């Protein structure tokens, strides 16, 4: 309920502040589990993804964000769950797999952090292994334009009294099926091809 309310407020705000364009929304399945992978170029990317994805998303979020009490309380209510970035975190994999088993949508920023220059960073190895283990459709989503509004080294003009609404495009791509890779050796064999596929799909959607 709270999540729906936040999305409602977020939609009003972002629609007033930005010219939001959504492409390929039909690729999002109306039900059943899937993983949404997104490029990360700006502070506002997670908010855009959670607000405009047709399904409610649960997204891996850096654990340090949960140091703040309001994030600890409100974060899980809007689908954020913590991922430790400085060591292998088996708990985040367990939680993500559990959410997928429950038929939910899981969001991942596979670069692990925001890009400094708007270009796609290297895809994290752990994310690729997780995609192979999960055995659910993977939907790439390119966020275009948010870097121009709030790059990592700048900040967003929240009100923007000039009246100019910058365009941000959320572009969903065709679902990718990586198949079942239950063993470590199967995942190791498929690793390079999968990483390349993920990189190319995000590059295609962001350029």
């Amino acid at each position, binding site marked *: 309920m709270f999540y729906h309310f936040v999305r409602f407020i977020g939609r009003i705000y972002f629609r007033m502040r930005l010219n939001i364009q959504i492409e390929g929304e039909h690729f999002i399945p109306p039900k059943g589990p899937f993983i949404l992978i997104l490029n990360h170029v700006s502070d506002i990317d997670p908010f855009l993804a959670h607000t405009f994805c047709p399904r409610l998303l649960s997204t891996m979020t*850096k*654990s*340090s*964000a*949960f*140091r703040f009490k309001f994030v*600890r309380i409100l*974060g*899980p*209510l809007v689908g954020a*769950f*913590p*991922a*430790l*970035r*400085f*060591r*292998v*975190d088996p*708990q*985040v994999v367990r*939680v993500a797999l*559990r959410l997928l088993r429950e038929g939910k949508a899981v969001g991942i920023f596979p670069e*692990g*952090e925001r890009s*400094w*220059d*708007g*270009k796609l960073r*290297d895809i*994290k*190895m*752990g994310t690729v292994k997780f995609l192979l283990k999960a055995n659910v459709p993977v939907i790439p989503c390119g966020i275009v334009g948010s*870097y*121009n*509004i709030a*790059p*990592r*080294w*700048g*900040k967003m003009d929240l009100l923007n009294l000039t009246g100019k609404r910058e365009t941000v495009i959320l572009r969903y791509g065709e679902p990718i099926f990586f198949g079942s890779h239950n063993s470590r050796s199967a995942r190791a064999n498929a690793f390079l091809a999968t990483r390349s596929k993920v990189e190319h799909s995000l590059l295609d959607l962001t350029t």
Partner: protein
Amino acid sequence: MPIYDLLYRCPLCDSETTTSLSNQTSCLGCKTIFSNSVDSQILVQPQREPAYLTSARMLNLSMKQLLKVRFDCVSNPDQSLLRSESIMAIVSEYQPIYSKKKLMGYTEIIRGGTAGHLILSNSLEFVETKGVLHHWNFDQIKSLQISSDAIQLYMQEKGLHQFKLIENSPKLWEDNLKLAISRCYLKQNLEIISYQPVIKTGRIKI
């Protein structure tokens, strides 16, 4: 983050830059001014040449080249390459996060901190204001990342150390440490494949 966090040194002459404004920084050497412009471009205003617009990517590439040159020019291995006032905190506890009574994960708890200086030379050192010295070899650093205005390092058998930088950019430390660590492994004929969540190396193929 202010633009200084990206342009912690001048991409044109490698001098230090100022931190006073969030949307502008200027070089203390050649006096060039760098400021945020429309559509995430950066306006470069050299003192004696016409101003021009460029991208963060171009300036970042130039800075990385200059950083490599600076590392190559160090003749004395004990010479300090970087020194920043910072506050060190060691993470010893993790707090569980729940949603509808289900465990969702953990967050690190950072309490207190010790003021001092973080120093990069042929190893990494932290000298407390009281004079206590902490020392780590580069191969003891198992993970490296930026967290807001701090750099977080996971030290072998000693856990997560966070260094909150008082004035300097965390990217300055990330770029310098990445280069220092990669050169440490290079001596062992190893190259770094990834820095997160743990530093992974592979043998260099000839």
